[in-house]
């Protein structure tokens, strides 16, 4: 079997499959330790109960409420129930978690969580988990197709039989056959200007699934992180607020008192992002930012627990948070939606699985809580790996047909053969700027309609783009063009789903036309599929086990 994507979810899936006896390989366009999971900062939430009394049900309730009741509660109960064991397992594998004075794994408060539940390694938790998982991959000798760009899923006889990928270092398309494929390709943050995401976060896994006929779920649910650096969009961790940082406006006012008087800075991200955006929009910001003030935490605590944040603030904003507040604004951060899967990672296509940010189980619903993304990668990466290994064992051999590689090659040569026309970068910038402008923190019907037109126009221009590098060796001009193709397809899905959801729920805020949550009409998931060439929206019920929808206040 093959796992595409080698961040936390992909590596966790591959390790589980290997341990179950599967012949498994990882494939990634990056070296595994370069994956964007490594940029996760604040932590991983699980009811370990080290910092206070806690239990998985409390974690599950916080997650359900955080999701604005759009999360599937069966999946959330699994996430929170299996979470502690996964954290202990990573610790056992060597993850260097920060410890409390008793020597237990330390846990800090995080937004939307009723208790201090987020385990962490200073503010480089993702880095530590990626390193640990890669060490386990190396220990097992799991084969890694490093710097292979997965481009097409191959289906044969109603089953996924592998992928066609471009070998970045040597050049050339190769078919890689597998009896089961797990997509763990991460998010699509690069769809937005000012995103916190790496350049690599361009959503190919979601786009490949879409083209294979697999529905994408809740694509309108894009999380905006409240605290990112202006200009670069670099993430300033929620750990800053977990450790006690304040958000203030230009008047020095802790404005969250007006939006979330109980939880203040520890309300959930959608609430804070809207509060920050409102302050900026109503002229109480400073050059389009508000200020994150850590000074009262003191140098010692900042240096011990937030050293990564300090390094980022100094390098990219010229601000030392020990002495000055950090200017921050909301930026696109995480795709709650993704490839529709069940709790085993299975998709609508036999033999195809998805896990992590690429997937939508859905545990995050309309708004993800900080600390739950890393947890999801481990819990559902493991489950997808286990089930895919089992599926591969039962499946009869299917191979990537030669014709699939030949067809893909012809398409690629046509792209490389064009020498007159527009280069992709201008389209990429127009797409990202317009998405930020038109499908951002607050959404208006007419802006989204306009965005749909913009995306259709970009889609048309994309058919004629020119790749300047015609060579085989490390041709990132080519792969960046392919990434743009995926982003344009996914932009359509985000916009049509956003237009279809005529309510305000979690990250999807329509204050001008549909300011309220509408459980009668929209307590259900959007599903986007391609009907011919056009995206089509369908609906899927939300699974409710223990918690009926209630008013959501922080």
């Amino acid at each position, binding site marked *: 079997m093959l796992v595409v994507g080698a961040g936390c979810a992909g590596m966790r899936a591959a390790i589980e499959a290997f341990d179950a006896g599967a012949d498994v390989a990882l494939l990634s366009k990056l070296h595994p330790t370069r994956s964007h999971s490594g940029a996760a900062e604040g932590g991983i939430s699980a009811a370990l109960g080290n910092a206070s009394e806690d239990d998985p049900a409390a974690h599950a309730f916080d997650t359900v409420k955080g999701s604005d009741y759009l999360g599937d509660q069966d999946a959330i109960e699994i996430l929170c129930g299996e979470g502690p064991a996964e954290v202990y397992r990573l610790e056992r594998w060597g993850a260097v978690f920060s410890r409390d004075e008793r020597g237990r794994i330390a846990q800090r408060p995080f937004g939307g969580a009723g208790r201090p539940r987020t385990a962490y390694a200073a503010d480089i938790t993702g880095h530590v988990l990626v390193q640990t998982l890669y060490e386990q991959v190396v220990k097992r000798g799991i084969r890694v197709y490093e710097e292979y760009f997965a481009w097409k899923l191959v289906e044969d006889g109603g089953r996924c039989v592998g992928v066609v990928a471009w070998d970045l270092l040597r050049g050339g398309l190769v078919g890689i056959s597998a009896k089961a494929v797990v997509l763990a390709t991460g998010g699509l943050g690069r769809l937005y200007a000012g995103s916190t995401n790496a350049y690599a976060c361009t959503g190919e896994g979601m786009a490949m699934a879409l083209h294979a006929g697999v529905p994408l779920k809740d694509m309108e649910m894009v999380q905006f992180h409240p605290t990112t650096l202006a200009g670069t969009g670099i993430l300033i961790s929620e750990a800053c607020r977990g450790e006690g940082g304040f958000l203030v406006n230009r008047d020095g006012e802790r404005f969250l008192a*007006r939006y979330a008087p109980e939880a203040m800075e520890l309300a959930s991200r959608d609430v804070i992002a809207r509060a920050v955006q409102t302050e900026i929009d109503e002229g109480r910001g400073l050059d389009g930012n508000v200020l994150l003030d850590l000074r009262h935490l003191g140098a010692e605590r900042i*240096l011990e627990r937030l050293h990564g944040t300090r390094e980022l603030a100094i390098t990219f904003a010229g601000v030392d948070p020990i002495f000055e507040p950090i200017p921050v604004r909301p930026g696109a951060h995480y795709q709650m939606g993704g490839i529709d899967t069940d709790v085993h990672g299975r998709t609508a296509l036999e033999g195809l699985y998805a896990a992590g940010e690429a997937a939508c189980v859905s545990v995050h619903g309309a708004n993800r809580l900080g600390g739950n993304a890393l947890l999801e990668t481990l819990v559902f990466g493991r489950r997808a790996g286990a089930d895919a290994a089992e599926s591969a064992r039962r499946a009869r051999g299917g191979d990537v047909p030669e014709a699939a590689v030949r067809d893909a090659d012809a398409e690629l040569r046509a792209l490389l053969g064009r020498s007159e026309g527009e280069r992709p970068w201008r389209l990429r910038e127009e797409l990202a700027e317009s998405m930020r402008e038109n499908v951002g923190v607050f959404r208006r019907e007419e802006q989204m309609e306009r965005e749909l037109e913009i995306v259709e126009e970009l889609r048309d221009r994309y058919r004629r783009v020119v790749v300047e590098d015609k060579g085989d060796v490390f041709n990132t001009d080519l792969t960046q063009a392919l990434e743009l193709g995926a982003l344009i397809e996914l932009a359509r899905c985000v916009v049509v789903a956003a237009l279809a959801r005529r309510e305000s729920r979690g990250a999807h805020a329509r204050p001008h036309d549909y300011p309220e949550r509408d459980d009668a009409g929209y307590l259900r998931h959007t599903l986007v599929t391609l009907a011919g060439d056009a995206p089509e929206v369908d609906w899927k019920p939300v699974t409710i086990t223990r918690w009926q929808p209630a008013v959501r206040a922080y």
Partner: protein
Amino acid sequence: MRVALKIWRVGADGRALREYEVDAPEQATLLDVLDLVKDRCDGTLAYRKSCRMMICGSCGMRMDGAAVLACGVRMRDLVAAGRVPVISAMGNLPVVKDLVVDMEPFWAKYRAVNPHLQPAGGAAADGREPEVAPERLSAIHKESLCINCGACVSECDAMSSDPDFLGPQALAKAMRFVGDPRDGARRARLEAVNGKNGIWQCTRCYFCNERCPKGVDPRDAIAKLGAESIAEGIDRDPGARHARWFVRSAVTTGWLREAELVPRTQGLAASLRQVRFAARLARAGKLPPPLPPHAAERVVEARRLRDLLAGQGREGYRGIVQGERALGRIVRGHVEALDRDPYGPGSFPRPWLPGARAGAEEAEETAGGGR
């Protein structure tokens, strides 16, 4: 701002230094400028990138001959100084194209140090984590910051003369496990790094510490491995014997006794082959006569230093002074002006101190149903 730079382009048809000029925003990093060059000037330019926030380790390259992460270099000061930096691929690794190197030799050395935790005990009965004091894990804090970017390897002096040297990254990785109180393979790991391509090949040039973008300080990790090895009694390598003799010489006579250094380090047989060389050194006044021993006036000071370290329980890596200073830098940070008042003049906005709720109450009063 207008940014100019020169890039060593490398391809199948040879290499050439090309100059490019682009308009870039004030806050642009080297990586941003490379992106502008690739988009606006030449799409064939090859380099790696991903996170653009100094955590993925993709964009290691050289600027004016020194390894950097392209995403971590702000260009404004260089532009202001009128500099036109020269960008090239990292050293000590084969160039694939332009700024892209083949990282496989790097990863081969990484794999050679068995880079995974080998737990010392069985799993706890309740499946929970073992209790580990925070300060014991902070001993490997720096080593666990490594992002595998290759900047240290690029600059490694020893590796440039001995390509088989395990090198700074792999050795820092080894120290990350040797220093981990949960690891049970300490002795085997130390034996492994004492092999012929191991720690004693390091020339102590310190370029790895100098160029590491994350403060891992690999040379300090190598020193810690050396100290741990000697503390474990693994001292067969001439490098270890050399280090031991320095200590022995210092605490017996307070000075280094050069005439004894070579036989103590290399053994008698090897030293005999160098008698003529020693004689020439002596004639030139470069070698003090071995007798009477060259003794310091107050040998006791040197002994006190040793006793102080022993009294503080600083065996092995804990006795590495440069390691301690560098570790201090992480714990304390590079703060030149810790005494500056963060709430003093010029601080804006008025900082909110814990418990200072007055402003929040005012805000609530004026909120007017803003929820």
